[in-house]
């Protein structure tokens, strides 16, 4: 009888765990060196190598090992409420102050980050923050379908809504919500000369075909003219460690 009860409890626990779609993303253990102050809502990313790009995508670095210095990056995409503290004539619905700011061109995004004492992340910094050091394809590692299929448009969410979709460094919104400006020009082998220096790399949003919505892999490089502003395009900021007082 005891054995039966024990087995039943074990089976029940397994079913409960299997049904829980909000699996926790295993976090990398990071030790912040003494003397490095990490501001609220920023994350310390240590110096070191990571694998950038993927062999399946010739417009990426195709799995090359890249070294970055340590840096800080925003845990969340820049919120509308915070952006308003920088640009007083920025109007937004106060009930959506925690949604990502969008319709912001590259220069405005860069200016905000400077105002906050930082800069836009480089593409390498962005990708390392999203995938960690283990060559994963999704920030949360495992593949699953985007749950919002069946709708054509873009539906932003509060920047801190999805703890189940964080990166191994605990960073939100790197596989969904808005696309994000990075500081790098978009270039790749064989690029047409007329395109050189014309676009900036944007990262980390969703792709759509008709009403099918898909997560994009962490290595996927999108591109955009710096003057563009669209409702699906926002940003987050980064800082070099040496600039932290």
């Amino acid at each position, binding site marked *: 009888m005891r054995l039966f009860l024990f087995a039943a409890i074990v089976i029940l626990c397994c079913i409960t765990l299997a049904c829980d779609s909000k699996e926790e993303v295993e976090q990398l253990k990071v030790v912040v060196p003494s003397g490095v102050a990490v501001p609220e809502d920023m994350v310390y990313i240590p110096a070191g190598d990571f694998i950038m790009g993927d062999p399946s995508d010739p417009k990426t670095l195709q799995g090359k090992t890249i070294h970055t210095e340590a840096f800080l990056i925003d845990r969340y995409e820049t919120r509308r409420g915070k952006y308003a503290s920088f640009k007083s004539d920025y109007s937004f619905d106060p009930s959506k102050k925690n949604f990502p700011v969008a319709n912001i061109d590259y220069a405005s995004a860069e200016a905000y980050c400077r105002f906050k004492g930082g800069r836009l992340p480089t593409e390498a910094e962005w990708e390392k923050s999203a995938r960690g050091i283990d060559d994963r394809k999704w920030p949360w590692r495992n593949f699953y379908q985007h749950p919002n299929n069946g709708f*054509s*448009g*873009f539906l932003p969410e509060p920047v801190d809504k999805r703890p189940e979709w964080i990166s191994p460094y605990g960073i939100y919104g790197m596989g969904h919500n808005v696309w994000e400006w990075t500081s790098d020009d978009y270039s790749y082998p064989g690029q047409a000369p007329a395109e050189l220096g014309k676009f900036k790399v944007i990262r980390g949003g969703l792709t759509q075909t008709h009403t099918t919505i898909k997560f994009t892999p962490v290595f996927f490089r999108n591109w955009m003219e710096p003057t563009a502003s669209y409702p699906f395009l926002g940003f987050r900021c980064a800082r070099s460690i040496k600039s932290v007082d």
Partner: protein
Amino acid sequence: MKFNRRNFLKAFSALGLALLPGNGYAVPDYRNDKNFPKEYVQNRDIPEFHIRSANPFLGVDIDNWGLVVGGKVKNKLALGYEDLFGFKTHSQISRLKCVECWSAKAKWGGFRFEELVERAEPHPSAKYVHLKSADSYYESYLLEELLRPRVLLVLSMNGAPLSKDHGYPLRLIAPFKYGYKNIKYITQIDFADSQGRNYWSNHGPYSVDGTIQPGIDHPLDYHKKPLPINGGEVFHPFDKRPDQG
């Protein structure tokens, strides 16, 4: 009294917008009835440029057509077809990107939305624009979006007056929006202080915003082969960008 264009303009001057039947086309509802006359505008997959029509109808009789510009404006306008040729004309080559995945390219000729803004003088609170059509379709935009440089109120396509299939006598081309936002057969433009719904957000899974999302396109002029798009106005590698002359 026969209601024709001249009477429309005369009536507008004499009685004001409230008494006008001018843009109130009585359109039979064939959305759920396949037995509509063959000569009606309807969905057809023309290889060069597919035709899409939410509600099949006969097309506009120009003698019964007029454009009313109203809502929150200082000057309400009633314009006949020939009045539209008094505006400064522009032309551009741009793609119509359908939310169903295909896109097609044409040379569009017409005038800028700011021409109407200058004449109608909308109130400062009027941040939105609602458009209605002769086939009982309707759309909603942010005023700011309609003032973007590549947005045209279109009178001609590929050097000829718009055809019945493509929205004669007046349609909108906003190249960074999905095709369903590019309303045809426009009869009424209202400035408003709140965002309205549009036809497809009320009848299907398509967003009011309708900004073209990053994803995949199947251009008709490329044998529908899949090509990546970055979001916003679609330019494929074989398309000329505006700054390329």
